[in-house]
């Protein structure tokens, strides 16, 4: 595994391998000194073409706890407009002998293009509406922590699925790990086609509510109102918001997830956001462990070559 570009196409085995690895890093993160020397001498660059302080900090913390050096490239739109292409930026980075680049871009597919141009590892930290693989991994990790396994869980992903890279990664991660996914949204906020998606679909949150173990709420953006995708945010909240009343109708063991930042009062009522069953803070904490696992998997060691098979015993004591 050289890059982590997306969840689509990843096998259950490779997802589970990363989650098991994340267990080890959760232990490291619980120590008084949460740091191991595993990636000493490696350099990880974060290349964010779109602001996301939370995600960037999470990746940088993960890299630092593995003893990697970190570089932060904040690409302002101005330097891009000066005629520097994505490829130029990437090659500049590579000239600094970077081992991995963590990229966030507003355009779907940008990490795929970087992976074609670069020799180093590329980690997708979110591309357009397309994928956000570490978010899906940390969500799966959080659910596994809570339920032991995702097998047989019924998960409703609610909200603006059309524009959501989180949904596009989570659908694949959740279903590959054995869960059942139902997308809940008005038709205007669903992708134009769901052909090939391993999901059910509903426009009625109230009908779905009692049947699920997990409600995964997506962030509802104000702009959607101006694009006539929903009449008003108030109407959206009335039909799809997780209100106190709706939260009361959830099954006892059901939990609520949200990729953050939450719009309290829009997709989630403030009181619901503070319930024990709302695992938002667990998600954030697990983000570092999962990103450590990914960095470690991509950067530590020669990957699964034939020589390693033998040397496992040779080096072992």
């Amino acid at each position, binding site marked *: 595994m050289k890059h982590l570009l997306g969840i689509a196409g990843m096998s259950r085995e490779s997802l589970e391998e990363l989650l098991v690895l994340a267990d080890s890093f959760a232990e490291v993160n619980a120590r008084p000194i949460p740091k*191991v020397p595993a990636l000493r001498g490696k350099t990880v660059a974060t290349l964010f073409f779109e602001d996301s302080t939370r995600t960037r900090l999470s990746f940088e913390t993960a890299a630092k706890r593995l003893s990697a050096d970190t570089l932060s490239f904040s690409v302002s739109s101005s330097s891009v407009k000066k005629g520097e292409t994505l490829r130029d930026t990437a090659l500049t980075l590579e000239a600094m002998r970077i081992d991995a680049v963590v990229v966030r871009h507003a355009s779907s597919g940008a990490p795929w293009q970087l992976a074609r141009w670069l020799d180093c590892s590329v980690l997708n930290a979110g591309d357009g509406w397309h994928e956000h693989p570490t978010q899906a991994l940390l969500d799966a990790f959080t659910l596994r922590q809570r339920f032991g396994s995702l097998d047989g869980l019924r998960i409703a992903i609610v909200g603006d699925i059309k524009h959501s890279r989180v949904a596009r990664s989570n659908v694949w991660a959740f279903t590959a790990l054995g869960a059942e996914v139902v997308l809940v949204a008005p038709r205007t906020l669903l992708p134009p086609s769901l052909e090939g998606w391993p999901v059910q679909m509903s426009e009625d949150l109230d009908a779905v509510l009692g049947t699920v173990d997990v409600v995964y709420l997506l962030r509802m953006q104000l702009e959607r109102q101006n694009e006539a995708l929903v009449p008003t945010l108030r109407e959206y909240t009335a039909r799809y918001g997780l209100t106190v009343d709706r939260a009361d109708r959830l099954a006892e063991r059901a939990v609520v997830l949200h990729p953050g930042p939450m719009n309290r009062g829009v997709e989630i009522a403030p009181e619901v956001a503070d319930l024990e069953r709302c695992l938002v803070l667990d998600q954030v904490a697990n983000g570092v462990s999962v990103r450590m696992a990914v960095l470690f998997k991509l950067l530590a*060691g020669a990957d699964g070559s034939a*020589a390693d098979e033998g040397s*496992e015993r040779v*080096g072992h*004591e």
Partner: protein
Amino acid sequence: MEAGDVARALRRMAHEIAERNHGLDGVVLVGLVTGGVPLAEQLAVVLSEFEPAAPPVGRLDVSFYRDDLSLRRVLPHAVTDIPGDLTDRVVVLVDDVLFTGRTVRAALDALNDHGRPRAVQLAVLVDRGHRELPIRPDFVGKNLPTRRDEDVKVGLDGVEIVRRFATGDTSASVRTEAGES
């Protein structure tokens, strides 16, 4: 070594550990993932037969501390589990085979992150030689002279030397499940 030989060696090592430390006060057994873990557990069982109480047992995964990461395919098999702070305790590291010494070096680094032990001792079931670092065991089940190109297979049910089919062709070596019994 047959199963009986392994049991006898562990019994002798248990007695040596108790003797050296004048009992088990402050002693913690830490098995190295993966081969050392069952041995540490077995040592604790044996110790409890003649000491008032079994010592605490932990396990330590050193994957993240190795200096030869780039040479190996490393995936932790189990999460590190250390029983409490190790500061001022006597840690007995337990592993199945002592070879180059690099795992033990990594283990010493890893222990640092869990406190500052009063002393660290090393117990291994088999010392097969070929050290690359100045590391020496305190308790040894058996010294087993080997060639570099041989593998040593270890379990509670015995120890055997496995010769690889063709020297220099590591991919043809016998894959064993040593240490996972």
